[in-house]
Structures are given as C-alpha cells and as structure tokens.
C-alpha cells in the first residue's frame, strides 16, 4: 500500500514540525522504548521483594538507587513501571486494533448497504453505547474472569460500536462521491468499493480517533486494574499498582503517584499526537 507509506511519512513530517507533535511523539516513543528495553533498562526484576517503603532516591544494598522508591512489598517502582509498559503497550493496541477491525467492518456494511442492515446495526450499537460502560466491564469480566484475553474482549465489545458509528457516517458521505459511482459503473464488487474506494479516504479522521481511543483504552485498563479486574497479580499492571497502594497514599505518596503519572503521560502523548494528526489531515 503506497498510500499508507506516504501517509506515515507525512504524518511523521507534520509531527516533527510542531512542538505539540514532537512532545506527543517523544512521550509515546519514550514509553515504547522503555517497555521494549525493560529487561536492560530496569534496575531490578519487577517481582523481586527488596526493601519495603523506600522513598525515591534511596540507595539499595547492592548500590543501585531506587529512583522512584519501592512499594509496600519492597518492589522497585521504576522497574515495575517499565515492565508494566509492556503489558499496557501490548494489550491496549491489541484491544483497539480488534475494536477497529470489527467497527470498520460493521461501519462499512451499515454505511454502504443502508436499509434494514444499517437500521439493525445502528440500533444494536445504540443499546451498547447507552449501557454504562464500567458496569459492562464489571459484568463481562466478573462473569468470565480477569485474564488478558478477556480484558481485550471486553474492551473490544465496548469500543467497536463507537468506531462503527464513525465509519458508518464517513462511509455514507464518501459513497456519494463520483469516484464511487465510477467504480459501480465498472461493476466492482461491494467489497472492493468499500475497502479500496471508500476506506482509504476515511483514514484521516480514523487515525485521529485511533490515537484518542488508544489513550482512552489505556485509561480503561488502568481503571480495570484499579477495580481489581486487571491482570492477575503479581504481574506489573499500572492500574493494579495504584489500587494496591492507594490506602497508603497519604503516608507514602510516591507509591500510587508514579503509576498515575505513567498513565497520564502516555495518554497525554497520544492525545497530542492525535492533535497533530488532525492538523495534517486538515492540511490535506
């Protein structure tokens, strides 16, 4: 897909030309690199119990510092954050990707076919969207149990309807274009028209939405962890880290503070990235 390659290149070009884009890109890249390089960057193993309640900057027995302190079980917070980034950056994009695959497919169908199919899909998505999302998560995960797969499944179900509505709206607009009529006259199949003629032209708004939604999913994963519905302990999960130490927040503020900052910085980075992607679509 030459179009995709060109789009990515242009996107990078725009991101590096505004400070907003640069900041967003560096925040996201920092976490991606941190997560990827966790085995080498982390000063300690994430599960190792060392020195409990050590404030940030304490020097450990082996001479290395606990830069961000340790938690109540004596685990190094920095190391856990770096390993936690791996979980977040694996499952959040996975869940978003799944939601997009389903949302795009249903949105294209509803928007292009119209009629009863559109009515049916739209009503179903209305029902899901009207349902309080947290209750939905609690219900789904409490029923099928907290595991990585189930979290991805729950998030996919909850996000896909929103994506479907966006894609449906874009499709309804784009199918009026003359090039779609030209494709219909060539006798192209509906699948070809949806995937080749319509979808690529919806990529601008969808990329913006994807960045924002990825941030939202990361937030959601944090919330799930906080509610005890995240990845089962002792795996380093940012939300769970906040949950486990929230009772001690007044005495040991650093324990929940740093995971909170980790989540905010990654989400902020994605939002800033979305902003500059939006600018680039407008330039087009």
């Amino acid at each position, binding site marked *: 897909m030459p179009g995709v390659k060109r789009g990515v290149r242009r996107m990078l070009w725009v991101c590096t030309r505004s400070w907003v884009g640069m900041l967003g890109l560096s925040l996201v890249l920092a976490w991606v690199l941190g997560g990827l390089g966790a085995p080498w960057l982390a000063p300690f193993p994430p599960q190792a119990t060392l020195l409990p309640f050590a404030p940030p900057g304490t020097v450990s027995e082996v001479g290395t510092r606990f830069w961000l302190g340790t938690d109540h079980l004596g685990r190094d917070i920095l190391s856990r954050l770096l390993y936690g980034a791996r979980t977040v950056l694996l499952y959040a994009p996975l869940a978003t990707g799944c939601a997009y695959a389903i949302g795009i497919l249903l949105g294209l169908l509803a928007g292009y076919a119209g009629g009863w199919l559109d009515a049916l899909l739209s009503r179903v998505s209305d029902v899901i969207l009207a349902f309080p999302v947290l209750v939905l998560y609690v219900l789904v995960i409490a029923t099928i149990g907290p595991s990585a797969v189930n979290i991805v499944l729950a998030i996919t179900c909850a996000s896909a309807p929103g994506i479907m509505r966006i894609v449906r709206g874009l499709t309804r607009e784009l199918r009026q274009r003359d090039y779609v009529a*030209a494709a219909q006259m*060539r*006798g192209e199949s509906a699948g070809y028209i949806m995937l080749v003629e319509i979808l690529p032209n919806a990529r601008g708004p969808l990329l913006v939405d994807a960045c924002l939604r990825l941030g939202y999913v990361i937030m959601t994963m944090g919330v799930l962890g906080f509610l005890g519905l995240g990845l089962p302990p002792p795996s380093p999960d940012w939300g769970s880290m906040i949950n486990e130490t929230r009772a001690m927040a007044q005495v040991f503020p650093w324990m929940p503070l740093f995971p909170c900052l980790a989540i905010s910085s990654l989400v902020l980075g994605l939002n800033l990235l979305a902003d500059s992607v939006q600018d680039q679509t407008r330039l087009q």
Partner: protein
Amino acid sequence: MEAMASTHLLTLDGLHVTYHTPAGEVTAVHDVSLSLPRGACVGLVGESGCGKTTVALAIMRYLGQHGRVRRGHIRFQGQDLLQLSPRQMRQLRGAQIAMVYQEPGAALNPSLTIGTQLREVLRAHQPRTRDEAARRVAQMLRDVRLVDVDRILAAYPHQLSGGQQQRIVIAMALLGQPSLLLLDEPTTALDTTIAAGITSLIQEIRRRFGTSMLYISHDLGRVMEVCERVYVMYAGRVVESGPTRLVFGSPRHPYTRGLLQALPHPGAHKHTQPLRAMPGQPPGLTPQLPGCAFAARCEALQAGTCDVIEPLLQPVGADGHLVRCHRWADLARPVTPVVTPASPPPASGGIVLQVSALRKDYPLPHQGGGRRRVVSANVAVSFMAQQGDIVALVGESGAGKSTVARIVAGLETATAGTVLWQGENLAQHPVTQRTLAQRRAIQMIFQHAHETLNPSWTVGAQIARVYTRYGLARDAQTRQRLVLEILDRVQLQRTLAQSYPYQLSGGQQQRVAIARAFAAQPALVIADEPVAALDVSVQAAVLALLLDMQRVHGTTLLFISHDLGVVRYLADTVVVLYLGQVMERGTVHEVFAPPYHPYTAALLTALPTLAPQPRPTLWDGEVPSALEPPRGCPFVTRCPHKLPGLCETTRPPSQAVTASHMIACHLPLAQCRAVFPAS
C-alpha cells in the same frame, strides 16, 4: 489630487500584496493600480488564481494573518484605508463598503431566519426601532425583486433557492447603504437563467441607488454587460485595462485575446469555428521568473525580450486603454473568428440509444397517514441518439437531466419507460445486472472534477483499473503501456501517472476522467456537466479534447449541460428539458432557429452576449418546486406567452415542425415563429 478624490470613489495605487506560505513570502498582487469613479461599475477579470479576490480582500482589509499589503495605497473617499485603525475600518465595512461573495449559501447563517439576519445588519449600523427596522428590511427585499416577502423573512437559508439566497446576500449588503459594493463572482455558482436575473438586478441597483461597484468575475460575458471599464488580471498583475468595449472589442494583450477566443461565440459551431484554448494555466503563488509573467503561455512570445524584461503598462490610444505587453503594437488586428474550412459532419450511423417515455419517481419520506407521496424527476422523456452524434440535454437545475443520465448509466433504474440499447431495454437494469460488454460500452464523465478521482490512489492506477476490469490488458506491462498511451491522447504528461489527484488542477483532473472513460473504448459516453466547474479557458481546452476523442473513436456522446452557449457549439441534437419534461427537441440548427419554444427563447435570452446592451428582463420567476409541479404546462408559471385558461390546465401537445424537430407547446407553430429570444 483634490480633483481625483472628488470624482473617484476608490483608487488603488501600486498595490502589492504578499502571502506568507511555508515556501516563503509570495506575491499575490503585483503593482495593481485601479480607479473607480463615483457611480461606476468596474470589472476585474481573469482566470482563477490571478489575484482578483485578493484585491477585494485587501480593500476590505480581510487578508487574514498570512496576507500583507507590502506597498501601495488604497484611497477610499479621500482617506487611505491602510492607515485606518481596526475600529475605524469596522465602522466603514458594511456602512460604506460591502462585499457579496461567490457562495451565497456560505454567507448566510443556516440557523437564523432571513428576517433575523437582515435586522441584525440594520442594528449593527443604525439603531432603529423594531417596526422601522422591519419595514426597511421588507422594503429592501422588494427592492431586490423578491416576491412573497413575508414567507422569505420567516424562512431559513436552506429553504431558499440559490438565486433567492444571492438576492438576499445582495439585500444584506445594501442595507447599510454602502457607497461601494464589491461583488466577488456573484453569479458563478448559479444557473444561466438565474445569473441573468442577478445581473439585471445589479444593473438596476446601480441605477436606483447610485452604488459604485467593483465586479469580479471570470465570466467575460457578464462583465461585458454590467461594466463600463474593465481590468484584466494575470498572475497578480493588471495586464490590460480600459473601456470595456475597447478591451473586449480590440484586445491588445495576448491573454485577453486568449480568454475571448476560448468563449463559444453565438453562431460558432464545432464544424465551422472551433474554440481556441489557451495552453497552460496561471502560475499561481510561485516565485516570479524574469520577464513577462504571461511568457510561458504566450503565442506572441519574442525570445530575448519577453522572457527577460518585465513589460510596463503602456497606453494604447487616448481612451485610457492600457496594456502590459512588449508586442501590443504587433497585435493590432482585431480578433476575427478563425474560420477553418468546414469539416463535414461525420456521417451519422444507425440509432444506438433510444429513450422512450422515461419516467423516474422518488418516494418522499413517509409523512404518516394517507398514501406515500412521490416526486417525479422525469415525466415521459423521449429522445434518441445516432451513432457518432452528440446529443445534448439542456435545462436549468432540477430539470431532471442528471436523472436521465444516471438511468442510462445504470446508477439508477427507471420507474417506467424504456432505454433501448442495441435492442435491449436497460431501463430497469442497474449496472449490477448488466453484462460486462454493456458496462464497457456505456461510460460516464462526472461533473465534479475534484471528486471524480479517488484521492487515495495514483492517476495511473485508476486508469489501469479500467483495463483490468474490462479485460483489455492481461499483464502489467501492457497495462502500463496503455495507460501512458491514453495519457498522451488526453495531452497529459506521462509523469502524471505517478501523481495523486490533489496534485492536479481541475482541468487536468477532468482530462484524466476523460481518459478513464475512453480507456474502456466505449460506444456511448455520458458527460454530466463536465466543464461547468471550470474556468472559461480550461473549459475550451477540455471541450476541444472531448470533441477530439469523440470524433476519433466515433463515440456517441450524451452531453448534459445548463450552458446553452456550450451546447450550441458542441451538439448535433438538442433536447430541452424543463421540470422533467421535454419542451423542445431537434437538431442544433432547428432548436436554435425559429420557431422557438418560449422556454428555449428564454434560455437564449439569459445567455451572456459579448455586446454591451441593456438586458430585457423576460422573466423573474424561479423554477417551481418539483413537489407541486403545475398541472398543465410545466413552464406556465414563467411563460410570457401563456394562453390563459389552456396552459394552466392541459398538458401541451407535441407539435412536429419537421421529422426531427418537436415543440411541446400550446402556441400554434405560426405563433412560435414569432417568439424570439430578446437580444
């Protein structure tokens, strides 16, 4: 200087405007001087991207954060507008200088009623009581010749037609009683007949209120009608200026000559007097090359002079006729039509397409209760096309021309009637039910150049797809070769195959669309207003190409247009449609000669001529709503010749003038012979 200030309302003096772009500072307006006498109407003409609108925006000081006046003065009633504070400028706008924009729909607030918006304008300038404001607003709407004022005041913009919206925008501009009105392409977005109404309104306003006007347009015909002086702009420069009759009558600049030659003149026909299209396009906002800005497109280019020294504005004669050309003296001969030996019309073949009693109804959204209402886009449309002929469907917006095209193309199906194509009725066959051969044989060129190509794929890939689909090229190499060949045929550079549509100009995009249609080697090409959105010069080039491709391939062309000038030039057979019904049908020579249908005569009247003369107003009305069409003749609400009692109630009979010429009218043919277009 004192004398100047008293006779001239507005003078521009050596105006330079630059825009800040990512590529650096570029000049959009270069040394433009212009004077507008009190009560006069002065035209500013040229292709898109020549800086006309920038001049108007500079006068309003609306250049935005990237635009800046670098040098020069703008004097209005003796004061330099560039020296005024933003506050003083705000007071001037609306009260003294008002502007009318190209898109009336965009100038009106969609969420407020017309009445509210108009009263708001009054409040901003002169505080008045509610009653007085309401009276003034209603009077102003009558002044712009709107009927049914109370309904319009309570309406929202989307409930009005484009012509009505433009009248309201003009009314809005006039409410502040400005002494200067800037009109930026006020008729470009409108149908010919509606545009003619707006032009005569503009002239009437000038007579009644003595408003001075700067009329910006690329439509030379309209400018000819309303302006006594004209400034021709190219690449941000005034290249020729003077009294309209001199500039258009004996143009001295090659650019002005090129613009005039690109216009389809009355009486010109493809076989006798082909249009001459100027090559190339305006340079746009790019750094200036040495020499004359027009050098790259000039036929009279003298190497060593024109491409080295920038020419200055020099006087031609005494009447204030100025031209910016080194070679104006050599270009003295008047523009005479280039009469090429009449190429014999190609022998028409058999009938390939026969449309009979075609009808299309659209169901309206259910209103609850009663039976479902339908709106008819077409009522019994019949015509036929012979092989190699150009059949034109003409009429105003809402005449149902595009519906006919879409049914023939298979994008919609007919409610009733037949579309006979090689012995088979395709009226109820959408493209999905047509055979590969049928799909290949009927191709379409669409109206909107900017959306006819998919923005995500290269030009080459989109043309290549046609060859793949119709099995005309099996392997990638043949495909590639065919794509390059067809690009040559439509006179586009081969390198454009790798370009994306947004990198192309409107004219180039339409050329690609033509290439895509003819790549299938079709027997019939449907062209739905293919040049309506293009500049005059580009229009001529695209028409010439279309004609050439059609001739070479012997293709039948179904040409849909609202522009009678183009149709008269291009067509062999003409079908005049009004509210989905055929009003007149015949060969181009029959339709454009007496006897006329009153509607055809009215359409011809609305056509701009290149002769300055007061326009007789034949009609004021709008096309009636297709929801409630008149019971009798559809044209009865606007017809100046209607027979009371008969035309309102009974459908007009089809009267055969000759075997090929039909007029649907109650008037006896003898009386139709007395109906003439007023010009």
